[in-house]
């Protein structure tokens, strides 16, 4: 890894994003619109809104960054830029961390806007701090990026790449404890839920919802999600080959 190359790569990815105004607008507006939808759905049940909106603040960045990254990385593979990059001094980790940091920054903006709306406009109420909610949202976004980088290796076309969303993201959302709390699931479902990283991210958000100060469980959960990010990045690095057939 080299700081110069990593820095140049982050700037390059952010520039690509900024040239695509519509994507930037959607990244920021869509989570806000969905939160508004939730707010009006649970108009007369503020407790339910608090529970669901808090989890969604973590789920949106994960899903959106997973999709954006898998397409971005697939484009690198199919346009020949990846092959060219790998003939330059760029290291695999420069590229992977470049995506993680660049989209992590984008997610920080996205999560801040969504959280600001949720707290000020929609009266979201959590015992813990907004800052922690945003931190967890950004870690979730980076998890989405890391899994997207890895999964893009198994897609040859954009059609295939978007199909990984239901495969990778939906089961995690179903089993994360939002619909059925995890300790009430059948044993085998809970066991699956135990090995899915989003379960820990959601638990961390619920800890912020219930406790004024960060709890040990919260830090442990964040650590687990961070560990999953590292594992996914290492796996993604293994899929990047300088030589191909």
């Amino acid at each position: 890894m080299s700081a110069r190359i990593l820095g140049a790569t982050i700037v390059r990815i952010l520039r690509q994003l900024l040239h695509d105004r519509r994507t930037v607008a959607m990244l920021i507006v869509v989570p806000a619109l969905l939160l508004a939808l939730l707010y009006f759905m649970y108009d007369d049940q503020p407790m339910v809104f608090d529970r669901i909106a808090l989890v969604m603040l973590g789920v949106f960045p994960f899903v959106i960054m997973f999709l954006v990254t898998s397409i971005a990385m697939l484009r690198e593979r199919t346009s020949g830029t990846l092959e060219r990059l790998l003939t330059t001094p760029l290291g695999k980790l420069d590229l992977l961390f470049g995506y993680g940091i660049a989209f992590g920054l984008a997610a920080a903006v996205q999560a801040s806007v969504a959280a600001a709306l949720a707290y000020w406009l929609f009266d979201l109420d959590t015992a813990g701090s907004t800052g922690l909610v945003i931190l967890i949202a950004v870690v979730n976004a980076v998890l989405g990026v890391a899994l997207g980088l890895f999964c893009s290796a198994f897609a040859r076309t954009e059609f295939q790449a978007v199909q990984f969303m239901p495969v990778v993201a939906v089961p995690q959302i179903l089993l994360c404890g939002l619909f059925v709390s995890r300790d009430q699931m059948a044993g085998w479902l809970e066991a699956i839920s135990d090995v899915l990283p989003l379960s820990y991210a959601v638990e961390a958000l619920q800890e912020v919802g219930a406790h004024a100060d960060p709890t040990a469980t919260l830090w442990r959960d964040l650590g687990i999600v961070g560990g999953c990010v590292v594992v996914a990045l290492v796996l993604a690095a293994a899929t990047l080959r300088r030589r191909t057939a």
Partner: protein
Amino acid sequence: MTSAIEVQDLVVERGKRRVLHGLTCMIPRGSVTGLLGPSGSGKTTLMRAVVGVQVVRSGSIMVLGEPAGAAPLRRKVGYLTQAPSVYADLTVRENARYFAALSGYDAATAERAVADVGLADAASQLVATLSGGQRSRASLACAILGEPELLVLDEPTVGQDPVLRDELWKQFHDLAGKGTTILVSSHVMDEAGRCERLLLIREGALIADDTPAAVRESAGTDDLDEAFLRLIRAQEVTA
């Protein structure tokens, strides 16, 4: 004259098909060597092997004294892929600056390369909005910046207008004059005459490795297109 590239008994298979059948050749430093042959003859595969992105079955390739693809070469070798490999959602300038930064060159070097390929006026245009010819020149700018020791160019002049093509060839010779070794592929025979050496390749085997003059002489014709045909026929008779 020392060699920039030494290929020894190179065998490459893509899928189940053998693309290169034990190819051996040597490319001298500071020269412009043309790699010519019909579409599907193995030109791109050979170039990919030289820059070290191709899995090879057997044989060896030494580039500037190192095995092809070795880490120290990544700073010294510029590679232009056949399909323009630049970011369509960045401007020409942003592309050039990014590839310059990867090899440790500054913005001025990137700017110079953009001007060298005749895109100074389009520098702040998004690559997606360029014509096909401009787009491949944007890609070329990213390969030539910093005057690498070896330039591997896969069909750099396809789709360019004749005046620009002439300018590009002059630039290749300028670069070679400063010591850059250039391996350039083409399937257009009229470009063969612009090279100092020719590698004629067909169905993964070398048919000729000589100067254009010597190729003309050995085939007994001044027309390189005709010479290529005669060499193929002569080979088929002996085979």
